[in-house]
């Protein structure tokens, strides 16, 4: 999971794209993971447990849970992983290019 996300973020550097995490670990654990896995993207820290306010508001019961939004903030895909995530993001970026 981390290696794929790292390469996705790297590949799309400079494009109108952002990967944002919502993290459910205690603070020391998330700091350690971000450093060890060389995560360059941001995460909201959700209070240190899976019962955090953001996970609750988004009814997240399973991890990881993935949402892909277009540039207008509309939810376009859910729970796409790895190459599926790449395809989803590439499609939305291409569509965004076309409207310019």
């Amino acid at each position, binding site marked *: 999971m981390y290696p794929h996300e790292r390469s996705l973020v790297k590949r799309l550097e400079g494009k109108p794209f952002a990967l944002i995490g919502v993290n459910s670990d205690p603070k020391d654990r998330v700091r350690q993971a971000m450093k060890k896995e060389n995560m360059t993207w941001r995460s909201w820290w*959700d209070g240190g447990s899976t019962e955090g306010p953001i996970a609750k508001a988004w009814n997240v019961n399973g991890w990881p849970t993935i949402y892909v*939004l277009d540039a207008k903030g509309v939810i376009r895909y859910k729970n796409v992983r790895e190459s599926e995530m790449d395809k989803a993001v590439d499609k939305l970026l291409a569509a965004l290019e076309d409207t310019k």
Partner: protein
Amino acid sequence: MKKGCLFAIVAALALPALAEEKDRSSLEAEFKQISTEYEKAQREFAETYQKTPEPERKNLKYPEVASYSKKMIALAEKDPKSPAAADALVWAARRSYYDKSVGPQAIALLKENHLESEKLGNACQMLAYNNSKENRDFLNAVIEKNPHDNVKGAASLALGQMLAGDSPAEAEKHFNAVIEKYGSKSQKESAKGELFEMHNLAIGKVAPDIEGEDVDGKKFKLSDYRGKVVVIDFWGDW
């Protein structure tokens, strides 16, 4: 003579009941033994996994649930109406997602023998992940026949989750039943969360804004990212 006769009658009446009780308690012991064996196998797997270097981990075999589920079903078939049979079948039903070979058999036996048991709540929850006709029929039968509110609640919640993708109207009916009729406090909360997800977090909806802080206390919002394609990843390092 009279006394002896009475004793014989009492003994004749009591013995079968005693024998049945003994059988049932040995079934309970057998149930505990199988579940302990499975837990032990899982623990040993976790230990081996930790010790194995990463490239070889994929060759490790996870303890096969189906073989334990088969033992549970065999146990239940010895005395299908007994409480130990209910425990054994619930055990297998809870794991039916992982072993599609024997799960349906456990569900069928539960439906036949324990539809009114208050132990069924635990079985219902896991069925949400497998939208099969057997599972749907079972959950509907539980809602109709089980007298315990928390069990009905668990069944409705599971049916709702199962149907949310394909038949949202049907799913909403089940979630509303949990909220209005028979859910426990936490079941009601789950049902409300599911309804919120259906209404506000479905594909095609504008995502609700997120406001929060990163691990260093810096505030930022999802709406700061308008104009960009965004992947939101709920993650944990476990």
